[in-house]
């Protein structure tokens, strides 16, 4: 066999950055559609893919991290999916089709899927206080938060997106006190009309969440460590007043994790801009999940699509198109904020399979 023939039959190298729902769905489909290909998942987590929707259960009796894994380790062996854990991507060289890792290792690809999702958004005015916040985006962060929270302690939530409100339900069920400082991001990603918002806030109070009108206080200006004898954190409002809590958690929605793509030549606004086939402006780079902004003919705008169903569907569409398909993403996610039988809020974004 000569060299060119060898190259022509070389297995395609699919690289996926991100180890969440979209990335793993894509990896599975890539293996199905191209049995000979190389599939590599790169993640900065030390854990294999785990179900973040289950993290609130950490508060209902200790569970080992094994219980959160979506797939057993053998799954990756059997599927021949290579997972590079604890690896931070620092750049993508689209000209040479290489992903650059922080330890200077290049990972070459024929097609790349960016499925890094988002991190909890922190408004720039609170960045200096970031070391005083607790987060809930990862297993490690959730463990640290649980450790910091005393029994029946107080959690001050800033913003209150649907990820935070999901956690709030669990915290209330274990008799913690939840204080919510409202913000325009409360209920994110739901878009509520003013009347709907007032009803939804009333429903939160009915659930047992204590509300502080953040706008009326001029917003949060800073967070300080609590003084001796007082709870661990103090939240200070711009127009005076404060509130204390054992932990303070920002829930202002998500910011797409795209920093490593800056300078790669692919189009970015807030997220990676993709068409409905989830292809970016680079024909060899795709994006799926909370990291991408998809062009919507209906809205004449780029928009994000959140929720488990959407993210999973995006992973599938991307994998199909990376292997020569011509699928288009269309949302099937219900986006209306509802109520349960007790009059408590119930969000379709809380649903997962």
């Amino acid at each position, binding site marked *: 066999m000569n060299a060119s023939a060898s190259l022509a039959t070389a297995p395609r190298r699919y690289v996926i950055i991100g180890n969440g729902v979209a990335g793993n769905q894509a990896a599975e489909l890539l293996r199905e559609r191209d049995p000979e290909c190389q599939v590599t998942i790169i993640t900065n987590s030390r854990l294999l893919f785990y179900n973040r929707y289950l993290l609130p259960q950490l508060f209902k009796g200790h569970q080992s991290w094994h219980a959160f894994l979506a797939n057993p380790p053998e799954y990756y062996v059997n599927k021949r999916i290579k997972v590079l854990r604890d690896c931070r991507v620092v*750049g993508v060289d689209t000209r040479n089709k290489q992903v*650059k890792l922080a330890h200077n290792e290049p990972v070459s690809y024929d097609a790349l899927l960016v499925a890094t999702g988002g991190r909890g958004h922190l408004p*720039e005015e609170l960045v200096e206080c970031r070391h005083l916040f607790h987060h809930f985006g990862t297993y490690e962060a959730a463990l640290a938060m649980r450790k910091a929270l005393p029994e029946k302690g107080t959690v001050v939530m800033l913003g209150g997106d649907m990820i935070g409100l999901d956690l709030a339900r669990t915290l209330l069920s274990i008799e913690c006190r939840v204080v919510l400082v409202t913000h325009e991001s409360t209920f994110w990603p739901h878009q509520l009309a003013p009347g709907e918002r007032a009803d939804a806030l009333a429903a939160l109070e009915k659930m047992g969440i204590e509300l502080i009108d953040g706008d009326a206080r001029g917003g949060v200006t*800073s967070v300080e460590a609590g003084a001796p004898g007082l709870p661990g954190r103090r939240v200070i409002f711009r127009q005076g007043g404060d509130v204390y809590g054992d932990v303070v958690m920002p829930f202002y929605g998500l910011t797409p994790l795209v920093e490593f793509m800056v300078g790669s030549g692919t189009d970015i*606004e807030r997220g990676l801009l993709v068409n409905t086939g989830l292809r970016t402006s680079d024909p060899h780079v795709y994006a799926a999940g909370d990291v991408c902004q998809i062009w919507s003919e209906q809205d*004449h705008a*780029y928009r994000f699509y959140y929720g488990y169903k959407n993210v999973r569907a995006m992973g599938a569409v991307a994998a199909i198109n990376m292997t020569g398909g011509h699928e288009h993403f269309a949302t099937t996610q219900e986006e209306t904020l509802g109520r349960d039988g007790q009059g408590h809020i119930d969000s379709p974004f809380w649903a997962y399979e």
Partner: protein
Amino acid sequence: MRGDHASTEKTGPSPDKNGQGTIHYSDDPRDAGWVRQNIPCQTACPAGTNVPAYIRAIADGRHGEAYEINREANVLPGVLGRICSRPCESACRHGWAGNGDPVGICNLKRSAADMKDARHRITERLYAPTGKRVAVVGAGPAGVAAAYDLSLLGHDVVIFEREEKPGGMLRYGIPEFRLPRPLLEIELHNALRLGVQLRTGVTVGAGKGATRVSTLLSDFDAVLLATGCMAPVHLPLRGLPDGTDLSQHCQDVEYGLGFLVDLHRGQNKRVGRRVAVVGAGFTALDCARVAKRLGGQEVTIHLRTSEEYIPVTSEELFETKREGIRIKGLRTPVALRTDENGRLIGVEFVQNRLGGWRDNGRRLAAPIEGSEFVEECDTLIIAIGQRTVNDFLDMRVEVGRSGNVRIAENGMTSVHGLFAAGDYVGGASTAIEAIGHARQIADKIDTWLVGRKRRRVVSMEPVAAPLRQPAHDFIPRQHMPTIPLPERHQLTREVECGYNQNLASEEAKRCYLCDLRYQINVDRCIYCRACIEVAPRNCIKLVHSVEIREDGTHGPLQETKEWQKVAAIWIDNNECIRCGACFKVCPVACISITRNHFVTVDG
């Protein structure tokens, strides 16, 4: 011997100041090519600032010397240390993929100015008087930089400035919370006190009572136009003729530069509760931050493209957002919405897609038909750029297609004796670009006036031992301390606090000192490989050939693993972190270190 305007009679060896060897001056293009290729920060600086040298001086605690090194290339170091657009940091090798964040070059420049001794003695390298007189029109950064250089070169310089005070865009276009005026006053004073006459409140133009350019040409040996770009670029809107002055069309609409100039002339400016700023440059960010301080509750910057493609520093962008200003991308304003009284109630935008690239490297945006939407606002500030005006000229001067005046290779316009520099030639740019260009033109004026020619050679100074330690690689970039948000309501309170001694020292240690050239003398090398064994990176290479280009730079290294083919053992400066491990381990001392930089010499 260092810096521009150094006066050496000829190229050749001379004793260095410590008597530890000899400094060589080279006009070999390969040495010049090495400097251009291997000191990316200095190459990227329009003024050619010797960045590694001043950072090294800061690391040693020699802040006054660091200030002087800066001042040789840029006469306003304290000013530029605050407001520079930092092209050096974009080029810094420490910011290359895998190397971390670029060195805080600009912050260090400021620290040199802040920390120099209060009784610091400024060094000026004055030439003898020439008896030639030069008029400079405009006392902005370009005019002041050119006037300073021309006065150093022995010419009598008079600056004509329309405003009451010098500084141009620095004084009238940049808010005080970014650039304190006392500092600006001091550095302008230092620039002009060599004998430059400053005539403020003098309008040069064709109108009644104005001083005419033709009069200046007859009274002076040369005239330099450095009037900048002070006219706004108009925003085309649906239903309005092109070039409509929107600030006249609606009282709630202002142009960014006019808004800032009015403010700094002392006018009492006001904004509505909801302020929309259209534009993507430093002026747009400044307008938004000023609007916030003037009481704007909801201030939003609207971009045609997205944050990734706007020409501002990430620090400015961050501070802008921190102050509660929102940034929204992919939209172009297409119409104003007004109420029955003509007051602004909103702006209609069209959604954009990202398009191709402009010639200047900026990103294009393409509007999407049928995607119009309205954003409510009470004040609109348009800051989409500035342009030059030529209507003050009382003679015909050749201009290019963009409307900017054309200059020849010698810096002269189509009118004999009339030169032009800075933004007035190249269009709206940055302070450092204006200063860099003005210095080049000042040099050309000098050549034209007295026939004095200068050329750049490379100074190669032996360095006894490595100056950097591998541990310096692990120092993170030191962030600029700022005042707390609640204290940011005053227009005059400077936001950035400057590095303290410790921060400056730590940040200075991060510099790779790219001006240090490590070379292996192959004639003495015994090919023991010890240097390769200790190298922390793949920085020492066995090379069988390399292309040397016409400009003296080199192409990719052709490596080999076969000893018989090795033509050179090459220290790859793209990889070298100047840790000195190779130097220390070499058993036959065949590795040398020299400090390389350009100096300008007469003749």
